[in-house]
């Protein structure tokens, strides 16, 4: 059992490496995109799709599937890379990212990309949609789970707190949300632009079960998800401390790489650091 676990973690780490390579190739190749917040959430989304969620890429509309909503839709490169690697569409299509007439727009469109559960991009809206899916699951007596990923800047939107209130009011324990706590939004550190701390206390006071983890530690991610699955009567918020631009030295912890593509020598360097061929 322990060996199996080690194998799983090794496999997931390898997968994360491949996903990061896709992300930098997509954004660098397109000359635009959002690398910072895509790279910071790689372990979370990869772990969900390759280890946790009940899915069938051959049948994306399977009613019993677990759902994931990328509320921070600007991290589309991450979502597309994971979906392609998971078998929803050919990996070769990733080179179309943000190219004119392509289906892989800067923010994901559910009608264009197989596996995308919900069209997102305008911040603050994903948690409400996840609530609706979780409510329907409860009403229908289905045991699927709903996951969503929010940015730490995104939670400045008022709608997030409306949804936070509703999720605990309706006791949506089939809902697990993540905050990608990389500390930065496009204009700078969250605490300078519009302070979001104390983050855990806020969600706890809204009636959520709150777990704080290192968002790059796959074992901690798995344990937190397992804990969320056992939590009854309330939704769970996993606050995942991450590094913006994780894996590319000159992007790490820099707000300026929120929505900018590397070009020239920096693109070459980023690819090298991420082990691209």
């Amino acid at each position, binding site marked *: 059992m322990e060996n199996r676990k080690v194998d799983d973690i090794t496999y997931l780490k390898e997968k994360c490496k491949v996903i990061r390579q896709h992300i930098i190739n997509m954004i660098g190749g397109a000359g635009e995109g959002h690398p910072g917040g895509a790279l910071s959430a790689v372990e979370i989304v990869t772990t969900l799709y390759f280890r946790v969620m009940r899915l069938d890429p051959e049948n994306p509309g399977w*009613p019993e599937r677990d759902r994931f909503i990328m509320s921070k839709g600007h991290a589309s490169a991450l979502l597309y890379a994971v979906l392609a690697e998971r078998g929803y569409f050919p990996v070769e299509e990733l080179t179309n990212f943000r190219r004119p007439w392509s289906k892989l727009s800067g923010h994901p*469109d*559910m*009608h264009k990309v197989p596996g995308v*559960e*919900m*069209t997102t*991009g*305008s911040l*603050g*809206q*994903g*948690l*409400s*949609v*996840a*609530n*609706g*899916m*979780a*409510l*329907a*699951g409860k*009403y*229908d007596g289905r045991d699927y789970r709903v996951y969503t990923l929010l940015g730490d800047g995104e939670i400045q939107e*008022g*709608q997030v707190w*409306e*949804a936070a*209130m*509703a999720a605990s*009011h*309706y006791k949506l324990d089939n809902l697990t949300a993540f905050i990608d706590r990389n500390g930065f939004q496009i204009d700078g550190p969250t605490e300078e632009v519009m302070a979001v701390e104390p983050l855990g206390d806020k969600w706890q006071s809204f009636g959520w079960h709150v777990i704080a983890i290192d968002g790059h530690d796959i074992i901690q991610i798995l344990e937190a998800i397992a804990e969320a699955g056992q939590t009854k009567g309330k939704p769970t918020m996993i606050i995942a401390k991450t590094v913006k631009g994780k894996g590319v030295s000159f992007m790490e912890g820099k707000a300026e790489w929120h929505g900018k593509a590397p070009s020239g020598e920096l693109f070459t360097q980023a690819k090298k650091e991420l082990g691209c061929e």
Partner: protein
Amino acid sequence: MLLETRELVKSTREAFGDTLIELGKANENIFVMDADLSESTKTNKFAARFPERFLNMGISEQNMMGTAAGLALSGKIPIVSTFAVFATMRAGEQVRTSIAYPNLNVKIIVTHSGLSVGTAGATHFCEEDLAIMRSLPNMVVIAPADALETDLAVRAAVEYKGPVYIRLGRGEAPVIYKELDYEIGKAITLCEGKDVTLIATGIMVGRALEAARKLKTLNVEARVIDMHTIKPIDKEAILKAVEETKGIITLEDHNVIGGLGSAVAEVVAEEGKARVKRLGIPDVFCTIAKPDQLWDYYGMSVNNICDLALSLINSD
């Protein structure tokens, strides 16, 4: 089919509340959502009957729209209700991005549209919704004239797959129809006439009929069209009126900018051969009075409609 008397019956919102019960019985995928206004929107009737399929979202319209999207993505048919002003503006971007853009099967059925809240004041009036909603791709926009038409429009909206916006009023509405074949997008010609055409929507259909009755006593034959669907608009009915009458007057409980009048004028302008006069709220935030007084005050009195019709006919 001209109204002989101005018989008032139940409001369109009462009709909506009753229809919801019928729909709830027939289709267990129907969910009804409200933002703490269920007594006013009459969704409380559904709530009492089907509590497990009624979601009170509290005073949070943005979250309500997103939650409706999530329900629709899970095979439900959410009917979302609140006042027109809050659905279309407080939660306008959620309606656009989380409902219209992904083309989800959500029905947004609102009450207290236009000036129907009378003395509540401009915060609660809604003279902008038709303009906003008809500019959203995928969105169907409907304004029923009376209780029966409301019933049929709500049923048609549920049958239709995709987002639909229906605007209802607050107060009692005159009876327009005893019976009706209703089809989304197909205008109803209430009476034929060759002199002038009155195209009205929602609560104003009753006034258009009254005006036509008065015009008849002045030997003017007015055609009256109930344009219950603002989008997709019935171009055929408009172009027929262009061909067969001397001019068109539009009538709506909405800003003259962007609503029915604009929609009709767009069709006519592209045809390039008819005159259109628009009656509606004259691009101001309105004062308070009883709704009938406000509609008169802002130029939609029966006398004013008749005067405008006469001047249009005689301006050759």
